[in-house]
């Protein structure tokens, strides 16, 4: 058992599941999407990204890329949220909420790809 692999796998899967949890629910209903969950997704995603730093393999490069995509979309979603609530003061209207959730949906897809790569790499190593 490789401790680094455990930590790495833990964060990749945690990022994916948290992301899924946030994404779950009616798209335009703010009551179904918790801000703290979004915060957790972002933090876990960032940690997962940093863990991929310095991996020189080809797989490592692809993992870093997918992770960066997820970060980008999640931060965009969070920034949009902040703007809507604190800066423009429009609040979480259904339109705004659905675009935030769709952004995290994109990030979810990137995280799914990360997880698939991770699983397939592990399988290849087993074979």
């Amino acid at each position, binding site marked *: 058992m490789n401790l680094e692999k455990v930590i790495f796998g833990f964060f990749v899967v945690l990022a994916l599941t948290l992301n899924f949890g946030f994404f779950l629910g009616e798209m335009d209903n703010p009551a179904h999407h918790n801000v703290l969950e979004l915060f957790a997704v972002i933090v876990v995603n960032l940690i997962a990204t940093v*863990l991929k730093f310095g991996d020189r393999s080809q797989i490592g490069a692809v993992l870093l890329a997918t992770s960066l995509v997820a970060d980008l979309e999640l931060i965009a979603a969070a920034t949009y949220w902040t703007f809507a609530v604190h800066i423009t003061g429009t609040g979480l209207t259904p339109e705004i909420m659905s675009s935030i959730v769709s952004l995290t949906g994109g990030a979810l897809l990137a995280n799914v790809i990360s997880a698939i790569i991770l699983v397939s790499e592990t399988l290849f190593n087993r074979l």
Partner: protein
Amino acid sequence: MAASVDLSRVTFIVMREMRGPLIALLTVYSVSILGMVFIPGIEVEGEIQYMSIFHAFYFMTYTATTTGFGEIPVEFSNAQRFWAIICLYVSVITWLFAIGTIIRLFQNPFLVRALSEWQFSRGVQRIDSPFVIVCGFGDTGSVLMRGLSDYGFPAVIIDSNEERIKALQLRNYKVATPSFCGDASVPKHLLEGGLRRSNCKAVIAITNSEEVNLKISALARLLNPDVGVITMSKVEIFEETLATLGGEVHIVDPFKTFAKVLAASMRNPGFYSFNNWLVRDKGASLERYITPPIGTWVVCGYGRMGYEVNRVLGKYGINTAVIDPHDSKEDEYIERYIVGRTTSKTLSQAGIENAVGILSGTDDDGHNLGILLNARYFNQDLFTIVRQNRHENEIAFKATTVDMIMQPTLVAARKILFLLIAPLLKTFFRYLLEDKPGRQEIMEGVIHALRQKVGNEEPHLVTIDFTRAKSKAVIQLLDEGKKVLLGELIRDPRGRDVPLDLVVFVIKSGEQEIVIPSNSYEIQENDQILFCGTGLAHRLFNATINSEYKLFYIQHGVYKPRSHLTKWIINKMNKDGEVTHH
């Protein structure tokens, strides 16, 4: 490519080292923010205020960086204040840890090395004109580099001495000089220096160590069979090995070079001055000839220089007396060989009173100057040749009135410079110095012409290739089947009645080399020309061969119209020509 590998190495090191601090920062920030969000704030209008994530992040941003804007958006509760204290200390310490890691990382010698290697190979890749790799930046290297810079020839410099590389970076060269501190005999460094690039013309191995030079030469030949190899060697066995490398190999031996010049100037009075003037030696003038006299010579110091000079003198049937502390070699016979240090006693033994010349050629500058003073005491009219070993003793040597100063580093550097910028000069000199009737008069003619045209200005020795890239206008005319004569090109494009201030030495056309070509020579594509002239003449010549309008004027004496409108008007006014009269 080597460069991208190095870059990935650098980013790899940075990323790996920064992983820890970044994760620490992320954790500390997220825990602090979560704490601020969950800890109840003060009560406003009966409602407990909680901080939003945005406000908590804002608070952490200015707290962790010790900016401290205060409590926003509303006053904190005591519980929040307590948490803020913890946040502040922990986050500030984490930041210090992260910054400390960055600083430590950039002090890591391996990272610094990887970075400088990367910068070096990037610098090399940015050079797009022909360049050379100079291995060793000592006295010879720096004189050579000054010359290359004057002629606009970029060079890549590799030296193992860090101080020399730092000194190099402070010089104001006019060309790109990417430099790298490292062992040039390591193949990787030569490759990073651009050895395999198509515009790498030559590798110049001039480090202090003969063995390293040999290794560099062999490596260069192995890694790039087409590159020129120029090296400085003073040892016979190495020269033999070098000669078998194959391809273009030049071995520069400053003592042999000097001996050749000395031999030539004994027969051709003007040659020494001419040669020195061409290399822009300080104090050299075409007006003042220096000719070593025929008679008995005293050679002090029978090292490499003494040996070469003695051989040259012997060839002219000149009697010599040699003074050297070491016994003579067994396989050669020297009539008068005095074993001992050069002192007034040994000088008298050698017959200094009746000698006409003295060579002071030991490898100790102080001793060489001492010998001169000693010899002058006995004989005022001696012709003196002295060997200056170290560049830093320049002032002392200039203060003595010596006829010839031989500085091995300088001689070697100039020889290498000419091999690079004026390869045809060798042909020219060989022609002038050939032992045939009339040659001396030709040389006198050349010197006379140069005296008139260049005079006291700095001579520019210029090699120009008539290729499409370098002389657009000429090739264009040749393509059209028209003739371009040499006599036309050497006129002034500002007024064609005046010839440019230059003297054409050699034209190389295919395998044929024409020395002092006549004005009716027809230029062919890919010809190479060597001329010497003023800097202005060089610029004007270049302007002519690259501008179809200037070339047209020089050939026809009238100006070619440039714009469509003028061409149209001319066509209307003057049915038969496209020519305006000035």
